[in-house]
């Protein structure tokens, strides 16, 4: 189940392909692999007899972030906060309304076509069964993308990657998805993503459906593959412990907006946005003598149709004041820690919040 299981011949089969990403580096090591600027996606809700647009779901609204080469960015948030939509926009599964996606210095739709982008960006989905074609064998599934893109020896590639993710090709190559367990299927999905020799892999809740003991195995595999193939990950999850374990930086989303971005250690020490703090205190305590006594937030997240004006979190925020209802906070670096960004009037001395510039009270 690990790299040591590989026979030398399989090892050699992988090596030439791992060398490829280096030569594909166009912008140099300092250029972020992905830059997203003001990304926006609104879904119309149609209804009535004539099918007119009744309302708009503001799924992703003005999201900007960067992912450096070789780093793992974790995206967290509750359901409906736009994390999956962001991922889908990033690999062009849905069309964006506005905003720029710049991949290694090349703008998507300008110098970079969608087809070329997909050679470099692959995705692993949550539902390991729904994302595999039930009528293709595992080997055909893994080799499919490589065939479509016209890469050499797709089947050989598929078999060597299956071995790499811990599935013996002789035993599994001719099986169908329904003959595999959830953990094995998710390994197939990972192998399929890697068969394209991508540089960026977007993992959308890729381990959430797995049992805890299997989840740990897949997380180990993902860390190994990242080192071996020089990958960059965007890791989407609602499980903060998993995100902390695998990520270098964490991005927190709420109702289609980024509320906080920070290196993992920094955000674990201090959550600068009141929403992030609530999300962290909602984690089960793991200490039977010191259980959670108060729920950090009341009610469910609001509907992303017609989100609140101003700061979208003000309806559930303990520290909300008048200014929060009208003025949208800007995402900016904290004083004394510029890598730690938060979008909250409490951190902006000029915002007009009565406690502006003092940070989030305890």
């Amino acid at each position, binding site marked *: 189940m690990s790299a040591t299981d590989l026979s030398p011949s399989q090892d050699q089969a992988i090596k030439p392909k791992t060398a490829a990403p280096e030569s594909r580096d166009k912008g140099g090591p300092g250029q972020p692999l992905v830059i997203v600027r003001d990304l926006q996606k609104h879904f119309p809700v149609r209804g009535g007899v004539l099918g007119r647009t009744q309302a708009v779901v503001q799924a992703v609204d003005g999201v900007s972030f960067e992912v450096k080469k070789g780093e793992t960015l974790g995206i967290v948030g509750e359901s409906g906060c736009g994390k999956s939509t962001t991922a889908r926009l990033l690999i062009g599964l849905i069309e964006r309304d506005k905003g720029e996606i710049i991949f290694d210095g090349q703008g998507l739709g300008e110098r970079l076509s969608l087809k070329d982008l997909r050679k470099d960006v692959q995705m692993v989905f949550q539902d390991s069964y729904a994302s595999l074609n039930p009528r293709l064998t595992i080997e055909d599934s893994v080799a499919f993308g490589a065939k479509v893109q016209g890469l050499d020896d797709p089947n050989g590639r598929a078999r060597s990657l299956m071995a790499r993710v811990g599935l013996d090709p002789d035993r599994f190559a001719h099986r169908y998805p329904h003959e595999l367990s959830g953990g094995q299927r998710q390994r197939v999905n990972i192998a399929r993503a890697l068969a394209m020799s991508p540089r960026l892999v977007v993992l959308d809740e890729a381990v959430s459906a797995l049992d805890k003991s299997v989840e740990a*195995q897949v997380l180990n595999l993902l860390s190994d593959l990242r080192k071996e193939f020089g990958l960059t990950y965007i890791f989407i999850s609602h499980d903060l*412990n998993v995100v902390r374990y695998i990520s270098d930086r964490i991005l927190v989303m709420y109702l289609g907006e980024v509320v906080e971005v920070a290196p993992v250690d920094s955000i674990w020490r201090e959550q600068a946005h009141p929403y992030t703090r609530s999300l962290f205190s909602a984690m*089960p305590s793991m200490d039977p003598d010191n259980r959670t006594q108060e729920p950090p937030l009341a009610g*469910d997240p609001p509907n992303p149709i017609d989100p609140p004006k101003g700061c979208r979190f003000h309806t559930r925020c303990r520290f909300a004041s008048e200014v929060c209802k009208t003025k949208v906070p800007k995402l900016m670096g904290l004083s004394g820690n510029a890598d730690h960004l938060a979008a909250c009037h409490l951190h902006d001395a000029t915002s007009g919040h009565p406690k502006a510039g003092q940070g989030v009270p305890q």
Partner: protein
Amino acid sequence: MTKLLDIQNLTLRFKGKRTVHAINDVSLSMEQGETLALLGESGSGKSVTLKALLGLLPPKRTEIEGKIEVNGTDVLSLSGKKLQKYRGGEVSMVFQEPALALDPVYTVGHQIAESVMRHKGVSKADAMSTALDMLDRVRIPSANRRLHNYPHELSGGMRQRVMIALALACRPRLLLADEPTTALDATVQIQILLLLRELQKEFGMGVIFVTHDIGVAVEISERVAVMYAGQIVEEGTTSEIIKSAKHPYTQGLLAANLHDVERGARLNAIPGAPPSLETKPDSCSFAPRCAHATAECRAALPPVFTPSPRRRVACVKAEPAVAAE
């Protein structure tokens, strides 16, 4: 006082094209008003245990041996009217997916009232006022208005509150909760857990809470039973399980929770996958995945050690560790 729950040597097989040995010789007891978490992975038999308790398994395809008693009632012998009275009256259940468990064509008030009318034989008006009271107790804001809402008009957290209100409307002695918070967001999950904790105190009922998340078990329960391959491998109070787990499987689960793991460090993952249960286990089911397994583990079923009353570990290795303490 009679025990709230007493399961003796429960063995359960599903017959069909292939046989699945879902539960193998499980014994479990609960005192009145206790909260017990059944912890385990998918396929470990947690949900099947709950369904057996309510007699919800298809009788033609299921073979059950052993004894289940709730408050002194032999559950397996119940049928017809008696079973109907027992379900929802004595014991009731909250399911994982409230959107599927609630009837989409009736208002939530109607559904709660229906169950009250059936069990208590009261008038519709009285039943509706009980329903309103229940919605208040599960802290649904403006309950009066919500009473006349259909399930699709409510959010996920709100629907789960309605499910809880429905389950508790007839004041059962035992509440079965089958992963009721798994489909919910983290901030809503903690609200529901705290609500269940409060209601449990208020009503003094027993709760069996099925979960795969150790963190959730810690928040909700006094006692934990860990299941693996249709057997209980370890049982004890929540702090005993969290602080001094003895079974290698429990230890592996705790490690896989990633609560205190150093970032980037290699995880101490349990290798392999759970067994398929097509044959009845005749040795330790966990041995193929266990780092400490010996020939003894593969030869026979592991002995069950009880280091203290109501604490047990089904592992060969547990005894010397206990003796050393």
